[in-house]
């Protein structure tokens, strides 16, 4: 992870002597998640005020449908960012797996085999990321920019300029109907199930605690017996497989695939994770926050679409949300910094 000029804000000011009882970091996080809940409620109120029947189940279905794949990709990315790394190749892997699946299927492979192959490709791609970052020790931002380009390029080689269609209707129905008896889109349901698993892992298991330790202080984690490199490699493999799975879902949902599926989505996924309160420096963040972030962005996009607002404006909104999500937590530190400097000049 690029260590930026803005260094991680310290929990205590290095100049103060230790006695002042500092609150544990998790208290700060609960504050952000509470803010997100309020924002979600505000968005829902806003949506209802602009469109009649905003809160009806059909909207809920469509929101889940639109956000499903993005949301699913956000989960392993959250874990990766928690360890202080990043994975910008997520959307390219989504595209590549769709391309693999489409190409094999159009060559006569049974659909299930094609999907399995796509997942294997995801694992391999993730392994490449993991080995380059953890074993070889290259910076993850540079590596995943490279693999982002590489995987998208391979998808291009495989598919372009064709668009593959003709996927089995029994599967593509996930793009049209919700789970019977509910208004939950299949991909949304899968996301929620995965979120529960991710949440339990991150917040209640030794592995999750290890991830936090790696993000906060990788050397100390290593000295405590945590196998840092191994964990990072596996995280990237999981990310690859999950993104490949998301690619399969997207292909089935759209009932077609072309090489540029999901181009540019990686930035949306990163934005959603960061807006959910996960620190780009690693070691801080919750799954609940990411789920809330997904809900907020989904609801907001749905509301804006129903108001016939251009997609471009939605981009502006996401960008502003992202900025706010990082400026506000830092603002205390920034104000203190400005005050110190002003005092010094006296």
């Amino acid at each position, binding site marked *: 992870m690029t260590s930026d000029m803005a260094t991680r804000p310290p929990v*205590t000011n290095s100049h103060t002597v*230790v006695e002042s*009882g500092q609150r544990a970091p998790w208290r700060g996080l609960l504050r952000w998640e509470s803010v997100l809940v309020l924002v979600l409620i505000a968005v829902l109120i806003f949506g209802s005020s602009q469109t009649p029947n905003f809160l009806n189940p059909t909207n809920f279905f469509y929101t889940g449908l639109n956000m499903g794949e993005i949301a699913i990709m956000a989960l392993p990315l959250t874990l990766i960012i928690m360890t202080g790394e990043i994975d910008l190749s997520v959307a390219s892997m989504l595209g590549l797996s769709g391309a693999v699946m489409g190409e094999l299927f159009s060559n006569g492979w049974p659909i299930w085999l094609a999907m399995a192959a796509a997942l294997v490709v995801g694992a391999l791609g993730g392994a490449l990321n993991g080995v380059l970052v953890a074993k070889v020790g290259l910076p993850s931002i540079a590596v995943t920019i490279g693999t982002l380009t590489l995987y998208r390029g391979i998808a291009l080689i495989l598919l372009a300029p064709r668009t593959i269609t003709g996927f089995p209707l029994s599967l593509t129905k996930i793009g049209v109907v919700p789970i019977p008896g509910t208004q939950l889109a299949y991909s949304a349901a899968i996301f929620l199930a995965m979120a529960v698993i991710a949440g339990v892992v991150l917040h209640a298991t*030794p592995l999750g*605690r290890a991830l936090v330790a790696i993000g906060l*202080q990788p*050397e100390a984690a290593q*000295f*405590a017996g945590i196998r840092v490199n191994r964990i990072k490699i596996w995280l990237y493999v999981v990310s690859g497989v999950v993104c490949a799975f998301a690619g399969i879902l997207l292909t089935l949902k759209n009932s077609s695939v072309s090489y540029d599926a999901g181009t540019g989505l990686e930035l949306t996924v990163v934005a959603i994770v960061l807006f959910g309160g996960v620190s780009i420096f690693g070691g801080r963040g919750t799954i609940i926050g990411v789920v809330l972030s997904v809900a907020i962005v989904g609801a907001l996009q749905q509301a804006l679409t129903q108001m016939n607002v251009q997609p471009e404006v939605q981009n502006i909104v996401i960008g502003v949300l992202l900025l706010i999500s990082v400026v506000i937590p830092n603002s205390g530190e920034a104000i203190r910094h400005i005050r110190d400097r002003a005092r*010094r000049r006296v």
Partner: protein
Amino acid sequence: MTQSSTTPLLMVRDVSKSFGAVAAVQGVSFPLYAGEAHALLGENGAGKSTLVKILAGVHGADGGALLMDGEPVVFKGPAASRAAGVSVIYQEPTLFPDLSVAENIFMGRHPLGVGRRIDRAGMNREATAVFTRLGVQLDPERVARGLSVADQQIVEIAKALSFNARVLVMDEPTAALTNVEVERLFEVIRTLRAQGAAVLFISHRLEEAFASCQRVTIMRDGRSIRTAPIEDVTIDDIIRSMVGRDLDALFPKTVTEPGEVVLDVADLCRGGVFDDISFQVRRGEIVALAGLVGAGRTEVARAVFGIDRRTSGTVRVNGAELPNGQPLAAMNAGVALVPEDRRQQGLVMDMSIDQNVALASLGRLSRFGLIRRSSERELATTWASRLQLKFSRMGNTVSTLSGGNQQKVVLGKWLARNPSLLIIDEPTRGIDVGTKAEVHRILDRLVAQGLAVLMISSELPEVLGMADRVLVLREGRITAEFTRAEADEDSLMRAATGQSPEVAA
């Protein structure tokens, strides 16, 4: 050797500084004369670092004054203190690794040539000139990355000189130097003195103060206890002033009969770092690895624990051989390592106290794969009381604790695993005197109960006071072994530096 004038170049008069309720420095006074090297001695926690920061302009004093050439000065910031001619060389050199040595010296003040462009040739020339003044030769165009600590210090000193520093403050300069490099540093100090500068030499190593300085000030608990010319004091005087109590109480020692072999290291080798290391540690005994910084002691410990991979040799714990490079396997075999660098390696500073204590025991504290928070809390509370940890809330981050209490948290983390072998690297570095004695008591008690301890220490009194056996390393090899009875400061130093033993008079 005496002062060239009666007015000190820099006078610290009655300086005080508090942080919140804690008085770090109280009424400290001492003079720095031109042409003189002045040692500032004191244990960790005596207030030396705070005083250095005041001299550097990083902190402003709450009370008292600094006088340069008799006139009071106030430093508004590091730039101001540098402009006044005070340069501080910190223990950790802060250089720019990607830039050349000359550019490191002149960053922000590059000599300018035609049209305000940087005159590189001139810069390199001036850098060489400064090095010549120091009596060393270093290629100014060389990139700073990869320089040894000693060379980095020389660049820092050159930087200070290029600022026309009249007062050079060196904070623990010898901590990471080999013996040869220490000698070179003393030469440099002599040269600086001859050019009329005043050198403030901060250390807790008494023999170095005697070797290089003409005047000494001793600090304890934030106050200056005594200032005197070096010839008027003895080592015992100094120790008594620094510690304020009898030395023996610092090192409680219960003599225990050693049991079976816990750690068996045979022909351990790591290319280019250490070679042919063989030794054993038994239950109930403390084996100390002594030697100079850079001798390879920490590296041996890291290889035994598995953080670094060994090139050849075997490590056996309780008879079973450890696989290469797997700390987890060592831990499961009963080995614990309290590392040298507390803040980066021993603790996760932004995690809470209980989370740090539990970090190495999470598997044990889980049921059905989920961590039981109550067990975690219980573990932490148990060890906090056993180790007499001083804290305000268990949920606070460990960064809120003092150095000594932080070390207790690290100890608690490892003792919670009930290890059979404890490797502890610099057990009391950066800890106040009171907690130092507590840590030694804890170790002594554990050893009496059957723990095997491998201790690495650069503090000779600690080695002599605590160890049952001492192995001396020099440049990656074991050069001598002493029992508790045989070991003394002189023989240890000789083995560490490679001098032949003195013939008994």
